[in-house]
């Protein structure tokens, strides 16, 4: 059975995406948490195009999680403008959230529920129901090799199995934009291959992926464009090959990363 992860709804059917390439526009975005004397994000501007695999890299505390949290609608920015196509984030939050998929670094699943029950619940939050929901769950579980375990509690799953269900829970509603936070952390090579293959498949079908990770090697090969963020601002942005070429003597994204962010530890409290 082949899996159809065609984006739903197709972006080209939406008037505000027609003839447009840009899917997310961020303008002078700032965020300062209450009680904090420093900005987590400071005047950050960025444009993400439809169909990209956009890598968001940076040292700990650079502002990646804050940026993703704002883009997912979890927290509100202190200042700046944010658009999803032609939609304003502030005014059309629910409408935008329906088109977003989120795969957090944590296993965002209920351990005492089965894989199927978890997926049924999270699918229903996006308005999926009945036969459509069940067939998507069956197809998804088959695609990640977990059909035989659909009735097993998540707590009995290995880390790799949980990661795969975690990913399925984020893409069941076929989002237009998928946020991934360390999607392969702590998994074995086999699980990682399945996850990365599925992500490529989704991207080929039109899903824009925004990927955050400390796996620079994985990012180098997976992403079509990368932004390195530090101290709440973007320090460099471009295609991985160009970024490597832009730094004298650099052979990997890691060299670029160190070049732009330095070698000192980033400890914040």
């Amino acid at each position: 059975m082949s899996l159809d992860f065609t984006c739903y709804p197709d972006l080209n059917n939406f008037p505000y995406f027609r003839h447009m390439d840009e899917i997310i526009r961020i303008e002078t975005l700032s965020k300062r948490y209450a009680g904090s004397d420093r900005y987590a994000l400071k005047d950050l501007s960025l444009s993400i195009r439809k169909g990209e695999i956009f890598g968001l890299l940076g040292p700990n505390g650079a502002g990646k999680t804050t940026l993703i949290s704002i883009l997912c609608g979890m927290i509100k920015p202190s200042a700046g403008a944010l658009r999803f196509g032609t939609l304003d984030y502030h005014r059309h939050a629910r409408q935008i959230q329906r088109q977003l998929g989120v795969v957090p670094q944590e296993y965002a699943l209920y351990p005492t529920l089965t894989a199927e029950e978890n997926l049924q619940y999270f699918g229903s939050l996006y308005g999926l129901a009945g036969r459509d929901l069940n067939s998507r769950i069956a197809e998804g579980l088959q695609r990640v090799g977990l059909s035989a375990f659909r009735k097993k509690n998540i707590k009995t799953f290995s880390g790799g199995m949980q990661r795969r269900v975690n990913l399925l829970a984020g893409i069941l509603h076929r989002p237009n934009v998928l946020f991934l936070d360390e999607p392969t952390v702590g998994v074995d090579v086999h699980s990682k291959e399945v996850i990365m293959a599925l992500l490529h498949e989704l991207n080929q079908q039109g899903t824009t992926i925004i990927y955050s990770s400390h796996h620079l090697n994985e990012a180098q090969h997976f992403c079509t464009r990368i932004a390195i963020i530090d101290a709440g601002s973007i320090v460099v942005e471009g295609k991985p090959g160009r970024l490597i070429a832009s730094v004298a003597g650099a052979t990997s994204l890691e060299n670029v990363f160190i070049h732009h962010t330095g070698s000192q530890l980033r400890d914040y409290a």
Partner: protein
Amino acid sequence: MRKLMASAYKEVLLLLRDWGGLAILFFMPAVLIITITLIQESTFKAVGESPLPIVLVDEDNGEIGRTVASNLREAPNIQLVTEEDDKPIDKARARTLVSEGHYQIALVIPEGISRELNEKVSRNVDRILGEFALVDADTANAASDEREWKTQEISIYFDPAAGQTFRNGVKTNIEQLLAKVEVRKIYDIFIDQMGLEEDPGLLNGEIITFKETIAQKGNDGIIPNAVQHNVPAWILFGIFFIVVPLGINLVKEKNLGTYIRLRTSPVSYAIVLGGKILTYTVICLIQFMLMLLIAKYVFPLIGLIEFDPGGQLPLMLMIALVAGLAAIGLGILIGTVAETQEQSAPFGAIFVIILAALGGVWVPTFIMPEIMQKISAFSPMNWGISAFYDVILRNGTAADIAQPLAYLFLFFATTLLAALFYDKRNKTS
């Protein structure tokens, strides 16, 4: 609506697979209501229904000692103890037995008290009758002679653990008994000195009697007992204990990462909470019915009085529903504010215990100090208990419980809004 039902179904599944949570929700309140009612019932019986053992040391061996002994022996709620291992108990031993807690009360009738009383009363009667020339002059003169009377004291030893109220009650009863003996003595001597051959029967029967009636609305009211006091109180305590698993549920959700998924999905936090409210409300009602069934069918099997809702079940159900909502609101607030289970579980449990103590679950509010009574008026548990008592003990109607129910609902709305406000503030801060 579908999202709400899906959220509620998820909560049901989570609960069904959490044996610890189910134990807190159903087993613990059931154990609690049985244990506490048994304990309180036996305490109630100790001062009420079951015989209270009283040690009597009769050093007098006269009429007073015999009369006191016979009155105590005939009293339905007193068990007279005069011997230990077939040996008479003396004054020193009686004091030891009470001080060691074997008995709560000992009564010592001193030597010669009957003789002294007899003599004193005879002289007084003779003096009075002499003034009316009803006795001869020698007798009247002898009665008029000043004589110093030795004060006779009846000693009562109390267990140090006995409360002041209990001591006062027993003392009053013994004083009444002695007063009766004195009156009887005076009466008998009058009859004797006046040379009446037959007792005119002036002391037969009570001149003034009491009729005890429980003030209730209507005539078909049920008489309150310990069970009817305890069952609603502990049902309410059990319902409010839902705060603990609900708080844990919310904190767990945050720590698991599922919170991120919920917050990034196109569903309002109110819907997510709505699923929890719906599920836990049903749990509260099941819990209520379970405890009611225990009180009705299990209590008689273990020697407790059967709890009879007396046709007030619909109103009781209404109270349980609104009290459940108040408890759920509190649980949601605690779960929203707490960051770890170590914060939410102990805080929730202790807070509920404080609310219960203030609300009159353990000690009725009317015997609390005035300041505590004022504070008690702010406990949602107090509103719930007073609504239950209005319905069960006072045959109240829906209109009678409207005010406490409104308070409970307001508490639910306030705590829920506070949780939503806190959550929104966190989102924007």
